[in-house]
């Protein structure tokens, strides 16, 4: 379970790229039920320029659709007895801007003491989520963005994590 994971996107326009970052990635991996569930409050993303943030929030329509979320399951095994970095794959659904698409993601899990670190990245095409790439002085932002997440997952009981759902 994490509530302070790191998530970033990297976007580019010709001759320039910029990164949006958040340290509010929330999520869990339930190995017993084989469930992966992560979400990010998109309002916590920052690119370093507040006016650009405002344009980004408008594009994402964060008032109506505040979260980007992924729910799925691991399709590869994870050896809890190993401290090695292990490549894993997950299949599930990614939802953003009210649009849900199937998404297969590869990443790495590594056990470090009680914690498990997670790293994953994938390419997101914003047009798949009915988002129009914003333009900067008539130069359109690339519709493909690199997404990267990185976090440390702490052990929690199922009831504690899910709030008694």
């Amino acid at each position: 379970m994490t509530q302070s994971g790191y998530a970033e996107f990297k976007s580019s326009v010709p001759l320039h790229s910029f990164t949006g970052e958040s340290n509010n990635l929330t999520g869990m991996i339930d190995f017993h039920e084989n469930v992966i569930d992560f979400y990010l409050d998109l309002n916590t993303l920052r690119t370093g320029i507040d006016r650009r943030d405002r344009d980004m929030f408008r594009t994402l329509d964060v008032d109506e659709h505040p979260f980007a979320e992924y729910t799925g399951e691991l399709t590869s095994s994870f050896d809890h007895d190993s401290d090695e970095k292990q490549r894993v794959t997950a299949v599930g659904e990614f939802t953003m801007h009210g649009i849900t698409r199937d998404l297969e993601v590869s990443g790495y899990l590594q056990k470090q003491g009680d914690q498990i670190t997670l790293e994953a990245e994938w390419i997101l095409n914003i047009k798949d989520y009915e988002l129009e790439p914003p333009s900067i002085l008539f130069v359109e932002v690339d519709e493909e963005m690199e997404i990267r997440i990185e976090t440390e997952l702490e052990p929690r009981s199922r009831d504690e994590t899910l709030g008694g759902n």
Partner: protein
Amino acid sequence: MRTVYETLCDPAHMPKPVIIPGAGRFMRSLLAPGLLLVIVLTLVMPDRTEAQLPRERVETDEPVDNVFWAMTNVGISTVRNLSKGNLNSSVLHTFGLVDRGIEHLYGLDDGANTRIRLDYAISDRFSAGVGRMTFNKVVDIGGKYNILRQTTTGSIPVELAVKASMGINTMPNTGYRFSERLSYFTSVMIARKFNSFSLQLTPMIAHFNRTVGDNPDQLFGLGIVTNYELTDRLALSAEYLPVFGDRNANTHDAMALALNIDTGGHIFQIFFTSSQWHNEEFIMANNRDRFWKGDFRFGFNIHRVFGIGR
């Protein structure tokens, strides 16, 4: 945000008993298996909401965005500052008086006082930069520090920033010694954004190492800057800079009205202003025009932030 799973399990979307008055036995024989199927599917369908974390918004207490749209309104610095690692470039132009008429293309033929300025953010609260303007070929260096940032929850109700700068007149053949070319400036900027309206008060002091005649070597002023957001892309702003106490002969309080345009990458400010000078100390010292008497000129500023820190 409602996920697909939540929507499927929402009681509002659960199948309900259907009563169809007057329906025949044949229709009932068709509906009964359908209802049974729905009930069975509902019972066996896994409730995926149990597997999901409850979605909760992050409560933040962050600085209010866009109290002003640019680091300089027309001639007066604003509380706006840069995020760490960012570079702001500004190009400012003021032309001749509009009342020069069509023969002078309403002042555009009279030459521009152009100022170029670069500021770099060393931290999220402190930026430093260098600039130069045409008149007197003044080169200035300075910095701005944000002591307080107005927050979204109101835990800090105002913005408070200080600015300090030093200018040097680099005009050749003036006969001035180096120290006589120097001027100093400092101001305190207090601002608050009320929804779409922002107000800034800026007490300031300027010192000139060399003055002409009986002009005082220190000038005190109070800059008043307002900004009103018409839309996300357009804002009207105004500034007024009265000088208090002793002032230079034949000078008047400066005034400007501006239209701010956000193009998605640049902030353009198109304005009418009484003063052709840039930098508050030179505006206080040299403005001889009265806005409300028709002594105003066209000008425009272009501001661009480069996010080189990320």
